């Protein structure tokens, strides 16, 4: 049946992807390209996290940098001030993101309209100002310098692979279950969802917690990799919050592969344009968003899939009884 074929292709794709990812730094020893690959993995993680909440559940966040910065500061402070090892610190960073997400979701998800999107924007700015001014804790604008944990890029690369894979796998498992159906139903029509027995506040909160967890982990990971953070970097509206939206929208909201394609595009473009345009890369972001919305409102993966073979389509797999079981 159709579903069998699609499932087969998915596994082939996943295995092929795994081989390419694991072999990349061995085949390509160039340190700069390895650095770009690490940025790519970071953006896959961020785009996928944002997409779980914004693309699947339809809850748009304008301030996901709040979770990123929370994760970055949590693990960095633990490491720099208490000597707490950074890799378990990454998990604690994720937990800190969830702790931040719970009250936000609990308050905002009872309301409809732009409240959540705007509250997230306010939260991330609020945290940036706290990080800037609470100098006793955060060193303020001086930032935190971390002793590099690894000299080689290889360990960072493989941790990045693990983080991106975990985020994508979690998204896949979640959206392929009852939760995924419920998130899509909430995105499509919240009144209908409630009438069908869906506790919309709770399921939106579940999506937010998962999204915040992986975004904050990515923040911790970034801090470890860069070995330096300061408030304007890790709470950046443009370079994080907006860029995450761009990755998901450009790649294809509500699709599993969309953020991967989006991450590829944005890392390539921002590297290509950085040298020539400096701060003007913002113009490129703006133009990209306009082009995407006008010509491909479903994103790259969404548009391709709508014209391509059926198994590629960004849908919850349900056509055949054979799909999506056994994991």
């Amino acid at each position, binding site marked *: 049946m159709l579903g069998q074929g699609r499932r087969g292709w998915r596994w082939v794709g996943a295995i092929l992807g795994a081989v390419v990812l694991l072999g990349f730094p061995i085949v390509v020893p160039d340190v700069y390209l390895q650095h770009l690959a690490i940025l790519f993995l970071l953006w896959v993680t961020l785009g996928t996290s944002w997409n779980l909440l914004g693309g699947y559940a339809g809850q748009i966040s304008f301030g996901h940098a709040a979770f990123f910065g929370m994760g970055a500061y949590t693990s960095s402070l633990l490491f720099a001030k208490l000597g707490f090892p950074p890799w378990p610190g990454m998990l604690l960073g994720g937990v800190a993101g969830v702790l931040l997400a719970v009250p936000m979701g609990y308050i905002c998800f009872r309301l409809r309209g732009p409240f959540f999107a705007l509250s997230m924007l306010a939260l991330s700015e609020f945290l940036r100002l706290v990080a800037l001014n609470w100098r006793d804790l955060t060193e303020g604008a001086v930032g935190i310098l971390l002793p590099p944990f690894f000299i080689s890029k290889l360990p960072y690369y493989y941790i990045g692979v693990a983080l991106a894979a975990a985020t994508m796998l979690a998204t896949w498992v979640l959206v392929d279950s009852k939760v995924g159906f*419920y998130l899509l139903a909430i995105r*499509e029509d919240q009144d*209908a969802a409630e009438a*069908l027995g869906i506790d919309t506040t709770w399921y939106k909160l579940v999506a937010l917690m998962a999204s915040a967890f992986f975004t904050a982990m990515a923040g911790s990971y970034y801090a470890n990799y860069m070995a330096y953070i300061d408030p304007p970097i890790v709470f950046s509206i443009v370079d994080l919050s907006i860029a995450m939206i761009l990755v998901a929208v450009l790649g294809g909201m509500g699709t599993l592969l969309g953020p991967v394609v989006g991450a590829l595009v944005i890392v390539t473009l921002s590297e290509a344009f950085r040298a020539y345009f400096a701060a003007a890369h913002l113009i490129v972001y703006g133009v990209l968003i306009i082009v995407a919305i006008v010509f491909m409102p479903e994103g790259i993966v969404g548009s391709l899939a709508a014209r391509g073979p059926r198994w590629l389509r960004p849908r919850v797999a349900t056509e055949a009884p054979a799909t999506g*079981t056994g994991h």
Partner: protein
Amino acid sequence: MGEMLEVRKLSKYFGGLPALVNVDFTIAPGEIVGLIGPNGAGKTTLFNVITGVFRPTSGEIHFEGKNLVGLKPHDICRLGITRTFQVVKPLPKMTVLENVMVGAFARVGTKEEARAIAVRELEFTGLLPKRDALARSLTLADRKRLELTRALATRPKLILLDEVVAGLNPTETEETIALIQRLPERGIAAVAGVEHVMRVIMTISQRIVVLNYGRMIAQGSPEEVGHNPEVIQAYLGEAYAET
């Protein structure tokens, strides 16, 4: 006859505007009740209050002995009351089957179980051939049928149908009525909200409740209601009420 749903002295004001005033009725298990009222009579408000979208200003709603006032719509769905919407609300980018599976998940946890329930309900309503179509591609009649199917998949004991036949042609109306008539044999009670005193509703309903300007002006068998002077007045004007 044990009553399943009891609505007592139910009122709902929006500011100073009375949308429902002292509405009082009951529904027994497996009963079909026609809820008739002109546009703006308060039918949708009544459904919204029963299903927890709005909190009543005063009055009580009991379902199988449980007080519904203050519960959320999703709680009320899980207790066994579900509804369709006057302005249909399909989940447009999901397929027909997926729409119905969302309903089925109210009772089961896995995709396989939900799919099995959904397929059964799609067979019941005759939408199974369109299972893979996107909901947004359906005609109005099919969207209405999809909403009914999706509501049935939540395994309700009572289903509130808002404007069941509005916008349907005579054939589609007949088909919908035939479906509603089969609900009691499955132990499901239904309230069918309609704008006009239609013969079809009169024939399938055991009881008719008539609303006008938020007040219940008549209740009884279709026969009684059809001859009630107040009902005639509400629909045809005062001149006809005398004769």
